[in-house]
């Protein structure tokens, strides 16, 4: 059983005639409990793809099968500024009609999972970027989802915080057995985290290559093994970017 199954999905933007393909017959799948990273240059339709999987948008063609209702993490946490960290997490439970008594206990558990005990009464603007992402992660876990979609969640964080959050997301992944589909620009990050790294082409977006990462966990971002795989992925991406250079020169 696959957690995510994408078959021949296309998405077109713009008016008929002058339209561009954001995604063109893209196909891939993610196993239950697998950690898959998607990398691609600009214009590969990563955000479009996640919106489709999250059910925020409908594909023009093709089939999308997802196990349960996925949660989505954004680059800018997407927390509600008028709610405290606690209430942000609680809202996810409330919208799932969890009873009030149950909610208080679950919120405390979830904040502990992301190691934010004692920060529940802070509002998002009183937290650092990394802490906001962890609240968002706790909120996503509150949805009791089988599939976690992440849209460059650590892109705006400083290097040390990002490094720690790599460990943290890996721990949550191991503890909960959730399936993760993680989109990033950062090839090293993809190799550090993923069981598999999928390379997307740009305009239109398609899966052009796939790298299986067999390095034992826990991994380090700066380890030579990660660097070696990252070098191969980067070379593949650059080849993709060069293709566009030739296209433009020819046009």
């Amino acid at each position, binding site marked *: 059983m696959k957690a995510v199954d994408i078959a021949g999905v296309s998405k077109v933007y713009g008016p008929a005639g002058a339209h561009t393909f954001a995604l063109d017959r893209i196909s891939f799948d993610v196993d239950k409990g697998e950690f898959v990273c998607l990398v691609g240059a600009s214009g590969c339709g990563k955000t479009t793809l996640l919106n489709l999987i999250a059910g*925020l948008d409908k594909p023009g063609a093709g089939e999308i099968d997802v196990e349960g209702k996925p949660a989505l993490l954004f680059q800018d946490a997407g927390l*509600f*500024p008028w709610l405290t960290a606690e209430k942000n997490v609680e809202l996810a439970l409330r*919208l799932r009609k969890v009873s009030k008594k149950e909610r208080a206990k679950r919120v405390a558990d979830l904040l502990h999972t992301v190691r934010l005990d004692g*920060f529940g009464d802070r509002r998002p603007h*009183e937290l650092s970027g990394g802490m906001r992402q962890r609240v968002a992660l706790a909120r996503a876990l509150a949805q009791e989802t089988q599939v976690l979609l992440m849209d460059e969640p650590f892109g705006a964080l400083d290097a040390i915080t990002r490094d720690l959050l790599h460990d943290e997301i890996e721990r949550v992944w191991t503890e909960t057995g959730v399936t993760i589909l993680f989109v990033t620009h950062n090839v090293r990050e993809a190799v550090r985290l993923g069981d598999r790294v999928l390379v997307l082409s740009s305009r239109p977006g398609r899966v052009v290559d796939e790298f299986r990462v067999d390095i034992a966990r826990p991994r*380090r971002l700066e380890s030579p093994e990660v660097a070696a795989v990252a070098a191969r992925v980067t070379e593949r991406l650059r080849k993709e970017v060069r293709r566009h250079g030739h296209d433009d020169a020819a046009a």
Partner: protein
Amino acid sequence: MATTTPLPDTLDVELAGIDALDVPIAPAPSKARRMWSAAWPKLLATGIFLFIWQAVVWLGLKPSWALPGPVTVFKQLVNDLKSGVLPKATATTMQRAVVGYAIALVVGSVIGIAVARSKVLRAAVGSLITGLQTMPTIAWFPLTILLFGLTETAILFVVVLGAAPAIANGVIAGVDHIPPLQLRAGRVLGARGLSMYRHVVIPASLPGYVAGLKQGWAFAWRSLMAGELLVIIAKKPSLGVRLDFARQNNDAPALLAAMVVILVIGIIVDSVFFGRLERTIRQRWGLVDGA
């Protein structure tokens, strides 16, 4: 190869460490100090204003019966407050203000929500609302008096006309300025229809709404003063009537005393009530830069 693998407890300590370093430290000045730093510029400005006023009086550019000095006006103010003339007038005026504003609040909010929701309504009346807001309320009076005569209804009608468009525009601006990310986050969490409104749209649009409420109050207060000057109802002492009465009697100190009351009420409601509400919301929503 021996890579240094972080043990779970190491990660906990590291996360706690980076959190401690990252959490913004808000310097909290003492309450007395904060109040003083907010109060002294106002006190100084008031002092300078009173001094200039007195200086103009001393220059004798205008006869003293037309332009009395601050001391004379202050004595008159105390007198009128003690005698009960001003409190009574103020009570009538405030009652009209509250009733008129309450009606404007309901009308403005309902219209605002309807226009913010519907594309057709927005195309139809969106610019009309802004037009109404810029139209001076005084221009409505001739028609209003023809329609309602010199009655309470006439005054209330104009107060509502003055305040409701500003409040409606506040709602519309509040809804329009909701960051799309917050709407997406709400949908991902499963908020739909009514729950989307309750948990996301309404709280997210509150800063704009409160700004509209504040502006609505300013319009209501102005319209009310114009109304009370033009629509004078017998045996109903109000601040507007006080102004008109004092002018007819060439009683400048009484006139200025009433003006001081009008100004002070306007300031108190605007800055103490709405100002505080706005500040609280901006702070909670994280819209304030620094402290």
